[in-house]
Each structure stands twice: as C-alpha cells, then as structure tokens.
C-alpha cells in the first residue's frame, strides 16, 4: 500500500496504484453493474456538515432535562399557605398554586412538567424531608411518584463528591466530538485513496 501526500485532497495514492485501480475499475464487470467516480456533491457535503452541527446543537445537555425537585419547591410551600388551604376544590387549589408561582425562574420547566394536586400530595412530604435536611433540591429528580437522587455525572464538588446536576457540558458530548472526528478523518482518508474524482471510468461492457 503506497501513500502519496503531495496533494492529499486530490489523492493519497501514488500514480502507479491509481493507474492499476483505474484499469480494474474499467475492466471489471460486477454482474453487469458499473460505478462512477463522482466527488461528493457540494450540497451533500453541506448537508452532512449541517447535520453534524445540528446534532450537537439540538441535543445540548440542558435541553429537555427531567424535572428536578427544586422546581416544585414553590408549589410545596404554597400548599401550606392559608389561601390554598382554604380552597376545597383540588382543581381550583392547583390553579391558585400555579398562579402564586408564576414569574419565577422555573416557569418554562413547570409548564412542561405540570402536576395535579394528587401528585403534589405524594411528593410534598419527600420534598419537605429533603428541605429539612438542607440538601440542594436541584440534585434530586422527580420520577413519577418518587423524588430520587439524580444520576448526573460530570462536575465534582469541593469535597470530592459528584455534583448531581445536569452539567452544561458532559462526558458523552466529549466522546462524541472525538468519535465524529475519527470517523470523518478515516472516511476522508478512505475516499482519497481512490483515483482523483476528475477521472471518470469509461463503461464499455
């Protein structure tokens, strides 16, 4: 296997290998099927680049995270207020709780993860227990009827324990960057080992 790095974007093979490849390409009959040697069309290249950029942009770790206990802290506190406790109807009480918490930093997350009074009654004692312990509620996820320690990894606290919050950047992303780089490097090397795309085979059979 001979290499030629004089014009790596044209071909990485030496002239003799390219000539042998061209002869084989034109001579060989693959069950009556032939192939051309067109370059990747520019729109295809651009679409692939756009796909890679989009892949990282739309899967950014902070998009679409699960609800953590902190977003419901306001709801739990509101349940204990006289205004809410005075309301007998669950639906009306829930509306009041939502209204009392409007304008906070968790508005969007609360809209995406709405709760009913029955859900709140189940998670309320669990969140209150965590508040009593003085832990960071953002490190706990609400999964169905349970409030559990989140399984995020990434950042480490000063005391050496892992921070259980969604990091703005994570290990999976880092692996992806290298993975994608290796992939495109190998594919570019592979296709640049072919005869230059300026040459097209003549299909005579």
């Amino acid at each position, binding site marked *: 296997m001979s290499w030629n790095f004089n014009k790596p974007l044209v071909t990485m093979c030496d002239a003799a290998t390219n000539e042998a490849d061209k002869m084989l390409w034109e001579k060989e009959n693959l069950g009556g099927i032939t192939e051309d040697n*067109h370059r990747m069309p520019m729109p295809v290249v651009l679409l692939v680049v756009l796909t890679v950029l989009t892949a990282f942009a739309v899967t950014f770790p902070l998009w679409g995270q699960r609800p953590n206990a902190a977003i419901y802290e306001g709801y739990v506190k509101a349940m204990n207020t006289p205004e809410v406790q005075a309301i007998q109807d669950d639906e009306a009480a829930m509306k009041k709780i939502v209204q009392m918490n409007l304008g906070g930093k968790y508005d969007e997350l609360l809209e995406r993860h709405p709760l009913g009074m029955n859900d709140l009654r189940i998670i309320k004692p669990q969140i209150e227990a965590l508040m009593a312990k003085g832990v960071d509620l953002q490190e706990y996820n609400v999964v169905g009827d349970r409030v559990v320690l989140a399984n995020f990894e990434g950042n480490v606290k000063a005391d050496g324990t892992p921070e259980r919050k969604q990091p703005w950047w994570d290990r999976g992303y880092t692996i992806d960057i290298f993975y994608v780089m290796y992939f495109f490097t190998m594919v570019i090397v592979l296709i640049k080992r072919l005869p230059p795309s300026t040459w097209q085979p003549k299909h005579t059979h």
Partner: protein
Amino acid sequence: MFKYLFAKNEDIPAGSAAVFFGFSAIIWFVIGTGLGSFNAAKLAFPDFVTGNIYFAFGHMRQVHVMAVIFGWISMAFAMAMMYITPALGNTKLWSEKLGLWNCLLWNLGLTLGLTVLWAGITSGREYSDFPWPVDLYLAFFVFIPLAVNVWMTILNRRTQGIYTTNWFFASAVFMVIIVFLVGNSPEFFHLTGLTEAYLTWWFAHNVLGLWITPVAAAIAYYTIPKVTGNPLYSHRIGHLHFWSVVVFYSTPAAHHLMSAPLPEWLKSFASVEGVLILVPAIAFVSNIMLTMKGKWHMFVENIEVRFTITGCLMAIPLNMQGGFQQTRAINWYIHGTGWIVAHAHLALLGFSTFLEAAAVYLGLQTIMKRKLYSLTLANMHFWLLLIGFTIYWVSMTIAGLIQGAGKIYEVPYIDVVIAEHPYMIARWIGGTLVFTGNILWLYNMWMTARKGTEVPEGRMPHELGYER
C-alpha cells in the same frame, strides 16, 4: 423445492434457494399483515373477537411484529442475498443446498417461535420477545447458515473488487449474528434491571440499524443500476454511506431510554449519534437519486424502480423523524405514544418494505425467467401498499400527538382513548388495504411462475414489455 433437499448441490438449479425464500417471504408478508389487520381491528372495535385468550391483543401483537420482521423482511433479504450476491461476483451461489435447508429451517423455526409466542410463552422483551431457545435456534440455524453462504459466495467470486451491495450484505449478516447473541444475553444469563433494559433496546435498535436498514439500502444499490442501466453515481458516497451506518447506527441504543436512570452522559452521547443517523440517510438517498439521472421516466413505467424510489424517498421522513424524536427536547413528549408506532411502520412497512418488494419482484422474474404476469395487479399492489401505509402512518402520528398531550397534561386515560378512536379506525383501514394488496401480490407472483411469458436467454425481465 423439497425434492432438492437431498439432491447433490450441482444438481440443484441455480436460484432455487432464492425462489424458495422469495415465496416464503411473500406468504409471511400476507400472514404478518393479516395479523396486523386483525390486531388493528381489535383496537378500533374493542368488542371484536373477545372471550378467547389466544385472540387477545396481548397474545397476538408480538406474533404480528415477529412474523413481519423475521418472516417477511428478513426472508426477503435472504432471497435478495441468494441471487444478488452471486450475480455481483459473476459466480454461482456457494451452496444452493445450504440455501434450501436454510429456508426450510427458517420457516420451521419461525413457525415454532410464533406458536410459542401465541401460546403466551415470551421473554417479555419488546422486539426480542422469543424465548431464549428460539433465539439460539434463529442464530444457529437461520442467520449463521445464511452468513456462511453469503461469505463463501463472496470469497469464491470471479471479480477482484466487491460491489457496494455485497459490502453491506457481508457485514450485515455478521452484525445480525452479533446483535442476536449479545442482544439476547439477558435471557441467556438472567441479566435484570437496567442492563436488561439497555440490552433489550440495543437489540431492537440494532436489528433495525445493522440489519434491516443496511440490507434494504444494499438492495437499492443493486436494483436501480441494474434496471436503469446507469452506473452507480458515486463509489465515494457509497463509502460514506457504508461506514456511517456502521459507526453511527451501532451506538445510539441509549436514546430509546431517555427517561430511564441510565448515566446521563450515555444519553447525551447516544442522542448526538441518533441525529447523526441522518448522515447515512443523506448519502444513500443522494446516491440513488443521482443514479436515476436521465431515467426518471422509469419511475412511472417500471414497477421495480417505482417501489425502490418510493422506498428511498421514505428514508427522508424516516430519518428526520428518527433523528430528532430521540432528543431530550422531543422525546419527553412523544415517548410511549402511537407516534413511535407510526415511526416503526415508516421504517418497516414504508422504507424497507418498498425496497424489498422491488427485490422480490425483480428476483423472482429473473430467476424463474418469467415476465411479471400482470402489471395491473402489481400497480394495484403498489397503490394499496402506499395508500394503506400512508393512512396508517398519518393516523398513528396524529394519535401519538394526542396521547403525548394527554400524558403530559394528565388528561384522564379514558378521554384519550375516546379521542383516539377515529384514528384507530383509520389505522385498521390502512392496515387492511396493505393486507389486501399483499394477497394480490401473492396471486400475481404465483401466476407469474405458472403463466408468465418466458424471458428469452440472455435477456432481463425488465427489458420486455408488460402484457397485462
């Protein structure tokens, strides 16, 4: 066919295994879609066939899924491999006898597997529902013999190079064995919890990504250049397609479990890879469309080209959906709804079925040297399949969005069921159209074998005009 099972390999006519596989595939397609239509009727009309547990939805759903995946789709693939692999190597199939036994054992194993599923004996793991003895049977008596025949045929080729289609065939039969043995390991080794969940979806994802998707695409790489007579547009794009399937399709299994307590970094990794599935899709669709240059009239005139190009075009919405629906931002809404059922049918009944149907149409005519009996029936098959599938896909996508809203905003379940009812009826109508089309197809191919005009030596069926 059965008389050749004990004949000497050299006495078996070339293409016998492909014909056996081809007709088996169509029959399983009729059975699989018939079961699908029956199951859909049970969702549309809850009082339809009640009182017998063997006709309960829970017993029959996985029988439909497995009949379609391992009966129709996989046997159509085997059919394509049995005649395309040797054709591309200018040689004969390594062993017609192995192919015939392979097909017989495949039919027996699948019948056994579906019977136990119907009886309620199941692993309980979606897409890998067969109990472990059936999994081992399928690995050792179905996929390994198929792989041996494909590999040996490629090794014994009379060409120096290997055409793109055979790259995909050779690697897909290898990958499906690995997927089967590793993906079912929770059953072999009693793995539970998250490990089981992850491997269940690793299996389900890769049966699609490393078996169905690449083989279906490989078929198009053969059908379009062969029937149109055009060279494949770009060998380079073929490389990009092949390697991006292997690299980007094998990794995102975790995106099926975005709400499970898997490590979050694994989900982030899988989610990026999930969008990158668009890379092989772009490569595949562009290469096939550019190969059609100057021959677009065949999209109207030729049934194999029409099926293939329709399947290719479906790869665009399929991968747009697949790429984005798994991201955290969208998955929270549509996960566990009919949207996913619609997407799965877009992959299996849309994209891959149309490509395989072309291969079976072309292959059976070529091997039997008989021109298609009736273009009219084939046209009806095409339109019933396309219209039926479209009704199904659109109705289930809408139903999924309703379910998603119901799930997030805690709408009482029975209200969601009522809201979905019209779409369940549409689903049943769509599925039944597909089933009807397949009965016509079986009749058409049977009549092609019996009464199709003989194709002269040295000619291809698509070179002759249609007669009916």
